[in-house]
């Protein structure tokens, strides 16, 4: 069971409270987690990664286990603690500054 933390605006868009829990078949990668997330909540398509290119939107970040995974390739394995559900995979809106 993978735990995903969404930013507040995406939680309200998807109408979820708290963390999202996803079952992933096969390797736990950025792509497989995002695929499963979008399959469960189609309204999130296009809000995290581009519809066509699947590139991460510029001002979103992927954090887990105190690491920034934003620049990892889509097929990179996520940390074991995320795959085991011990630590959440966090989708974060980047700081706007100010």
């Amino acid at each position, binding site marked *: 069971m993978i735990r995903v933390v969404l930013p507040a605006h995406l939680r309200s*868009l998807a109408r979820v409270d708290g963390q999202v829990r996803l079952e992933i078949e096969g390797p736990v990668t950025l792509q497989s987690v995002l695929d499963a997330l979008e399959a469960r909540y189609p*309204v999130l398509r*296009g809000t995290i990664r581009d519809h066509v290119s699947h590139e991460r*939107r510029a001002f979103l970040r992927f954090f887990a286990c105190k690491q920034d995974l934003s620049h990892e390739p889509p097929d990179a394995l996520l940390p074991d603690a995320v795959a085991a559900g011990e630590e959440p995979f966090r989708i974060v*809106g*980047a700081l706007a500054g100010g």
Partner: protein
Amino acid sequence: MSATRVLVGTRKGAFVLTSDGKRERWEVSGPHFAGWEIYHMTGSPADPNRLYASQTSGWFGQVIQRSSDGGTTWEPVGNKFAYDGVPGTHQWYDGTQHPWEFKRVWHLEPSLADPDTVYAGVEDAALFRTVDGGQTWQELPGLRRAKGHLWQPGAGGMGLHTIVLDPSDPERIFIAISAAGVFRTDDAGATWRPVNGGLKSNYELPDPEAEVGHCVHRIAMHPSRPNVLFMQKHWDVMRSDDAGESWREISGDLPSDFGFPIAVHAHEPETIYVVPIKSDSEHYPPDGKLRVYRSRTGGNEWEALTKGLPQRDCYVNVLRDAMAVDSLDPCGVYFGTTGGQVYASADAGDRWTPIVRDLPAVLSVEVQTLP
């Protein structure tokens, strides 16, 4: 007794303002989609309870919201705006060609006849259409073949911000794009051509009378005279009496002919409204006085409308999509400011009252007159 519903898009959410036909007491609902930019929210002429909103964010991209109960409840619909085929390129700031990239929906224009058909004007400039209530969107790619490779974004982005449907001819549509100009189709969007003859951009373009490149801010039409168009250009207020084939200046005695919105009175096709702004580098009213100007002669002769509007120390802007009229008698006129005020006049502009004073910066105002 008829009712009035004002749809307000702001930098941080949407608001719905409702009143009876007297337009004196208002209920305020919102913020809807709190924290998101609502570039535009509007209703279907064919079904006033069908509303659409363009919800955008620099972080999360584009969402389209749809309501079937007049804005009480909403559901997100399709947000995939994929350019047709290979997107191609347009002019970039450094003189190179740059690929088209979707950024946001600036304006939604529902069909006059079908609540499920809506046109969407987007940045980078293109026109999309849905025929299934927003579930899927298809580009009308003929528009970008109208010299799209010469279009170049201005500082505000290359947005398609105005869509005017001809009520007498369903095949004819006018659109306007920042820093590109006005374009017209006569075959329901298959082919397009620029209709910018007579526009002069002496400071903005190397060829002041170029076929494309003019920074048109807004065009407006009265439904009873579909060949007459009014335009607020970057500088200059303009008029065409031949469906855009030729334009002539009608700025007349305005204190400044720079501005963003332009609107036409619901019952008087020669009565028009603009909000003069000091200059392109000073986006606030001249002399700190917020004045709507009205012409009852189709341009050239203008009168300042000031009653109820701040006449000192006012430095707000009124954006291109932030002025609208209702269809009651007398005609109501409404506009929103970047300072968060929405002003209403229930007597065609003679006197103004703020409906709300402290919203986030207003991006768009639309009005529905309900039975």
